[in-house]
């Protein structure tokens, strides 16, 4: 029996603002899972705090909605304990690039097989419009009335420079592109970072749907994502044009495969055997 959209149906009332980009992302995630024939009980979505991380509540799926910025760490533990699950992480850019920066760096190094979907709206939405790690410098924000003096982070360049094994960018309103990108991220063995651009309809009057429509372009069939220097050029280039698609990709074994080799797994199904101590006692004492 193949997976259908209705399998993911949730009865929870959605707390997002009308017109929020999160709706498009929710729709795309469900569509990607249906197309990959992944049922709700074989998928785990980990998330933290903010508006984006509420996403798993709005579909029927295994859900670990933990602490702000710690979603990648929690997902790492969960993937190692239950490697038979497809693990996605939904975070805002505040959680992924700000509060959770160290966990992102570590996850890219490990190349653990999880897919991180960053809802990047360049704003702290739920806390009412403060600057985020991707907000442009020199604008003002509620906590920076004189202007934001820090430069924004460039998550794509950062990820490419760290040999993150899958780096992609998409847009919340480009349904087909987003579904295609999420599917590719899930199918990729290793850590996949998908930066998803979305307008904040409540707090950001600059990065509107119209703005993204005018400035984004989709990478063509001829683009080769295997070349890190070319990929860096693309995301560091001086043009204001914003690339969408798989920007960089490399193939290496996933962390969970390496770590779990020779270990009884999933760890979830392990019993308790106090007698095991005897073996260690004999060998090491």
């Amino acid at each position, binding site marked *: 029996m193949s997976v259908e959209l209705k399998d993911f149906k949730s009865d929870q009332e959605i707390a997002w603002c009308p017109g929020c980009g999160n709706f498009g992302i929710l729709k795309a995630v469900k569509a990607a899972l249906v197309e990959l024939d992944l049922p709700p009980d074989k998928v785990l979505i980990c998330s933290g705090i903010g508006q984006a991380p509420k996403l798993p509540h709005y579909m029927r799926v295994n859900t670990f909605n933990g602490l702000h910025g710690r979603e990648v*760490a929690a997902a790492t533990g969960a993937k*190692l304990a239950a490697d038979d*699950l497809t693990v996605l992480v939904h975070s805002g850019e505040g959680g992924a690039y700000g509060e959770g920066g160290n966990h992102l*760096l570590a996850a890219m190094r490990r190349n653990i097989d999880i897919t991180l979907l960053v809802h990047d709206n360049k704003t702290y939405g739920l806390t009412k419009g403060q600057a985020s790690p991707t907000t442009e410098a020199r604008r003002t924000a509620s906590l920076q009335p004189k202007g934001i003096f820090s430069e924004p982070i460039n998550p794509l360049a950062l990820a490419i420079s760290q040999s993150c094994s899958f780096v992609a960018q998409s847009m919340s309103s480009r349904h087909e592109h987003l579904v295609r990108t999420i599917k590719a991220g899930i199918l990729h063995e290793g850590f996949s970072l998908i930066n998803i651009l979305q307008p904040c309809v409540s707090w950001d009057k600059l990065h509107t749907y119209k703005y993204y429509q005018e400035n984004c372009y989709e990478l063509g069939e001829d683009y080769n994502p295997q070349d890190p220097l070319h990929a860096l050029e693309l995301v560091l280039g001086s043009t204001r044009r914003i690339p969408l698609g798989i920007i960089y990709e490399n193939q290496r074994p996933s962390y969970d495969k390496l770590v779990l080799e020779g270990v009884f797994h999933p760890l*979830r199904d392990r019993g308790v055997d106090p007698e095991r101590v005897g073996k*260690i006692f004999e060998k090491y004492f």
Partner: protein
Amino acid sequence: MEIGIRIAGAAGQGLQTTADMLGQILVQNGLFVSTYVDAESRIRGGLNFSHLRISDQALEGVSERFDILMALTTGAVKRFSEKLDSPGVLLCFSSSCDSRAAPVDLDNLAKQAGNLKASGVVGLGAICSLLEIPQDRVHEILQKHFTQNAKLLEINLRAADLGIAAVQDWKNKPEFPGANIHSPANERVLMSGHQAISLGAIAGGVSFVAGYPMSPATSILADLAAWSKEADIVIEQAEDEIAAINMLAGASYAGARSMTSTSGGGFCLMTEGVSLLGMIETPAVIVVAQRPGPATGLPTRTAQGDLNLVLHAGHGFFPRLIFAPARIEDGFETTAKAFDLAERFQVPVFILTDQLLQDCQPSLSAFDTSLLPSSRHLMRASELRERASYMRFEQTSDGISPQAAPGASQHVVVVDSDEHDEQGHLTESPIIAQAMSQKRIRKAKTIKNFSWFLNPYLDGFEKDNPLVISWGSTYSTISEIREDFASQNRAFSHLHLRQMWPLDESYLESILRTPRQITIIENNTDGQLASLFKTVGLRPADNVITRHDGRPFTVQDLTVKIKEVLS
């Protein structure tokens, strides 16, 4: 019969290795040995020592006195030669460094053997010769220790033999009768607190460990890594402590028995994660190996200063269990049980150890594992498959909702750090919020109703006698003093807690009612157990004896302090 040996010198001179090998030789020879370590936070230089206490019966308290001093630096001679018991033996790096020095030139003999670094092993040979330990026992341990490197083995065998010969040539050497038991190899081994806790974790079914290195907690991570193949566990060096605790939360939610080991500062970073565990009712075993604070404090020293921290860590109310092993054997049993209790009640369980307990090594026999719990408390897949629905936080009379792991069945498992409904979805409803809060209170009551999971030790109780109360690593030292006082008609009773939370107040009230005087002894600044007794309304202590210089109480200093307060 009791012989004290102190091996002192600089970090990097192999003091601990020498002490470990000497301890193993003496245990093999049928003696009881206990050791402790005093080390600075550095890799080379400074002044460190390892102390061995040898007897024909178990003596596990911390003692300052020693009959033999091996001093490998001038600093060690200056600091400790005055404290050597008389008639003692001073083994120096050079026999001319002190008028009392034995005619054994450790450094010269080491050079003669082929490497100056073997001076400790020359001393090891010399000590074994003084104690009339057979040479082949010495060789046996060296062979075991240097099995990977034939050249080093050769040098060290030569070094030990030179030490043995130098003592044999020494005309007026003092005698140590009673050490040469020459019993056949016995079953006892030297085991440290961290090894016992690590073995306990394995017995408790740990399958996932995440942590970040910090003294004195790292040794547990190192043991589990070294044994990971036999134990069949995954061990993860996390990018920081915050990651470690959140990995635990994720792994434990996904059904793995999970633990971490950290110390004060690292644990402070974990506290939001502890609160998360409380909210999502997810089990975890958290070892907090105490050292003095605040902040970085004394990194390689000991303290019992984190009771308040683990008692209150994490915002909001949620149930927890806190244990403090008193002895090495307790470390094993407590940790094994901690995994069972954590999963049964879906709570964080803390194990408070400290630098003293982590690094001290008494000789003991193999553990009995036959009575340890050996089943999981997660819902079985077969049971789940037959259910029409599943709610992770289902309201129950005892506050414990059956835990299912994601992926085990067709049901999805939802948890949320926000207040949530029975399904696990976040809620703003005051009715549901109140009901969930009450569920956590009910669970705390369920746990408390069990009384003790680990009984306190109550030694020599007489209802009128003064009562001494202590917890954690101080047990053996105070026990020894109690026996000594009892033999001198100054008897006191000793109550020693191993379970720090929850407390069985009615049990404690019944014990605390009658003694004519109550003294609480703690290796911390502020008397945290004494404060806890006051908070929960127990009879307050008349005296609180504290020590907060980073060193453990010793039999000698605590004897003086107890005498001062005892009436």
